């Protein structure tokens, strides 16, 4: 298990992606699976920076990677505003260009890139997003 704390700033997304990519490769993921873990982590962290902390300075994101026999767990913790993922409307991917919305796309991508997604919020303990990707299962 490895944990690292990052300042919640877009300029740190690359470091966050490298951190989870290393854990994914160490867990035996191929490049395509590793890319999926990086993309899901980036989308989750970008949402935290943009919506949970809303540009507020000094916020932090703690990322924990835990290898399991069947895959990799990535946990993102923050202390910003919480949200209810059930209330985020899924994007309409068949809509005409003029009616396309980018809102909700990041969350939609996380659900499709990962095998399990859990979101918990506890007063005082912050928000915890737990992502799991199984090894060796092609999308």
């Amino acid at each position, binding site marked *: 298990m490895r944990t690292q704390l990052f300042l919640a700033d*877009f300029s740190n997304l690359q470091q966050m992606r490298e951190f989870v990519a290393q854990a994914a490769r160490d867990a035996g993921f191929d490049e395509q699976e590793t890319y999926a873990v990086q*993309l899901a982590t*980036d989308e989750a962290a*970008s949402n935290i920076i943009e919506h949970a902390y809303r540009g507020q300075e000094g916020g932090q994101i703690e990322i924990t990677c835990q290898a399991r026999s069947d895959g990799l767990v990535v946990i993102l913790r923050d202390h910003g505003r919480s949200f209810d993922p059930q209330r985020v409307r899924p*994007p309409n*991917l068949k809509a005409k*260009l003029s009616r*396309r919305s980018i809102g909700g796309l990041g969350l939609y991508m996380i659900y*499709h890139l990962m095998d399990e997604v859990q979101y918990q919020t506890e007063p005082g303990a912050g928000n915890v997003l737990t992502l799991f990707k199984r090894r060796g299962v092609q999308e």
Partner: protein
Amino acid sequence: MNITTKSLKHCDLVSASGRIDSATAPQLAQALDALTKSNKFKIVLDMSGVEYMSSAGLRALLTTQRQCRRYNRGEVVLAAVPQNIKETLELAGFTDIFKIYDDVVSAVGSF
């Protein structure tokens, strides 16, 4: 990320390389905005050098495509899209709204 823009006879060629995420997507948006603000709506985006793209990059592409397609005055087409990024475009349903060409020459030739 690095971006260069080149004016060709029938379109403009934007070449992006490196990583497009929430930190760098504003640079791409700015380069594309500069073209549409100069009334240039036929754009080829050469993605051969792009290693990574998140939904922040998709947002910049969508905004520009809306500008370009308005009044049928043009469009953004994508060229030489790496496999990982093509999968992201498919996942987001963007392959319905962007033409993708295997290489820059055929993308430029489409205008």
